[in-house]
C-alpha cells in the first residue's frame, strides 16, 4: 500500500495505482481526453496534468500515466496546473476547432480565446482509436505511422486492412469526429455557446432558418413562422 496526499487529503492506494485513479477515488475531478477506462494509459493529450513535489522541485506530470509514490504530494488544481491546462486546451482548439469534445472542454475550463493558427486537423493523435482497435477489439488494424509533423494514424500502406472487421470502435471513441454545432460562424475559434448557455439561435437575424425543431423553443420562446 502506498500513502500520498492529494490536495492535502491523505489517501492510501494499491501499488501501481495512477494519480488519476487515486484522485478519482477522493472525488477530485481531473479532466482527461486520451484516457479511457479499459485502455492502457497513453499520455498523449497532457490534459490531465497535475503538480507534484514542493518548492523548486515541483513539476507537472500527466496523472493518467504517473503511478502513485509513497509520500507524494499532489495538487490537482493549483494555479500552475490551471494555467497549463488552459494552454493545452487552447492548443488542442487550434489543432481541431471543429471538435465538439474539445469545444466542450474549452467551455468547461473557461478558455475564451484561441491565439493560434486554426489547423482544422482531422486528428489530435490521442491514440484512443489505436488502443481501442488493439486492446479491446484485438484487431490491430490501425496504428501510428510516420514521425513528427508527418505522424498520423492509418492502416498499413493506406489500403483496406485485412484484419479490420469494420466494428466502428475507432469512430466511437474518437474525440475529433464529433463535430460541434457550427453556429453561424464555422470559423470561430472558440464557440463558447455552452459556456454562457445562450442558444445560438437567439440571434435570429443571423440565421436563414431556426436550427431547432421545437416550436416554440423552450429556451428563447421564439416560434417558427
Amino acid at each position: 500500500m502506498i500513502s500520498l496526499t492529494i490536495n492535502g487529503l491523505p489517501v492510501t492506494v494499491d501499488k501501481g495505482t495512477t494519480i488519476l485513479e487515486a484522485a478519482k477515488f477522493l472525488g477530485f475531478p481531473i479532466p482527461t481526453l486520451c484516457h479511457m477506462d479499459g485502455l492502457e494509459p497513453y499520455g498523449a493529450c497532457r490534459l490531465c496534468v497535475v503538480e507534484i513535489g514542493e518548492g523548486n522541485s515541483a513539476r507537472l506530470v500527466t496523472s493518467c500515466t504517473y503511478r502513485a509514490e509513497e509520500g507524494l504530494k499532489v495538487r490537482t488544481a493549483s494555479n500552475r496546473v490551471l494555467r497549463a491546462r488552459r494552454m493545452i486546451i487552447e492548443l488542442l482548439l487550434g489543432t481541431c476547432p471543429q471538435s465538439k469534445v474539445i469545444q466542450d472542454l474549452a467551455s468547461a475550463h473557461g478558455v475564451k480565446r484561441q491565439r493560434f493558427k486554426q489547423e482544422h486537423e482531422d486528428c489530435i493523435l490521442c491514440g484512443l482509436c489505436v488502443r481501442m482497435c488493439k486492446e479491446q477489439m484485438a484487431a490491430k488494424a490501425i496504428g501510428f505511422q510516420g514521425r513528427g509533423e508527418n505522424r498520423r494514424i492509418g492502416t498499413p500502406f493506406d489500403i483496406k486492412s485485412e484484419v479490420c472487421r469494420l466494428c466502428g470502435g475507432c469512430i466511437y471513441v474518437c474525440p475529433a469526429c464529433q463535430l460541434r454545432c457550427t453556429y453561424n460562424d464555422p470559423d470561430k475559434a472558440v464557440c463558447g455557446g455552452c459556456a454562457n448557455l445562450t442558444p445560438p439561435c437567439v440571434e435570429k437575424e443571423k440565421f436563414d432558418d431556426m436550427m431547432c425543431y421545437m416550436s416554440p423553443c423552450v429556451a428563447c420562446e421564439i416560434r417558427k413562422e
Partner: protein
Amino acid sequence: MSSAEIASILERHNRGYGGLIAILEEIQAQYGYLPQNVLQDVAEQTGRSLVDVYGVATFYRAFSLKPRGRHLISCCLGTACHVRGGPGIAEEISRQLGIQPGSNTDDMEFTFETVNCLGACALGPVVVVDGRYFPKVKPSAVKDIIEQAREGIGRIQIESDARVFPVEVSCARCNHSLMDQRHVIDGYPPIRVTVAFNNTHGRLLLSSLYGSYSVDSEFDIPPNTVVNMFCPHCHAELIGAANCGECGAPMVPMIVRGGGMVQICSRKGCKGHILDLGGSALS
C-alpha cells in the same frame, strides 16, 4: 525476395522481438527499399502485426518504402546547415535534378532527400552523396557534386580499383614535400598547393590517390577556370612546358617521391593528367 530469404534473415536475428530494426535494415540493404509484400512477410513470420512493422518502417528516415535511385543525395537542413544556407543548396539540387526532395529522377539515377542534421554541423551546409560528405557546399558546387555522383563516388569503389594508389609528391623547384599531414582526403594525406584564379588565391587540397579527383578548396573554383598553382613553401609557380592533351590548358608538374613526375591539368573539372614514373621528365 523470397520468403525463404526473409526466413534466413529472421533466423540470424533469432526472431526476437527486439530485432525488428536490424531485420528491416538488412532487408533494405539487400533490396534498396522495403517492398510491401516483404513487410507483410516479416510481420507474418515474426508474429507481429503489420501495423507495428509498418509503424517502425515509416518512423525512421533511413527506411524507404519506395524504390530508390542508384545514387542517394541527402542535403542537410538541420539547424546549423539551415542558417548556413542549406535551403538554397536543397533548392539548387532540386533544380538541377528536376525533382522535389523525397523523390527519384525518372531514370532512377538519383534519389534526393533532405535530412535533419547529419552530425557534422561545423561543416555545414553538408551534402552527402552515396555516403560521402561534401562540406561547406555552395550552390555553385552542386552541379559538380551531381556530376561526381553520376560518375560514381565512394571509397569502396576507389580502393577496389587497382589503378588507384596514393602518391607522394614534392615541389619541382624547392623539393619540399607537398603532402599535408593534417588533413585527410580519400583516407590519405592530400597534396597541398596554393591556387590563384581571378584575383583570389587560397589553399587547395588534392587527393593523393592517383586516379581520384577529390579536392578540398578554400574557395569555390568555378568549373572550367584555369588556375595557377604555387608551392606553399617556396611560392614558386608550379608550371611546366606541357599542355593538357584534353583541353589545352597548361599542365602542373610535381615530383613523385621514388622517381618520376606527375602532371595534372590546371583546368577545374578537366581530368587530364600524365604520370611518368620513368623519371625522364626530370632530367
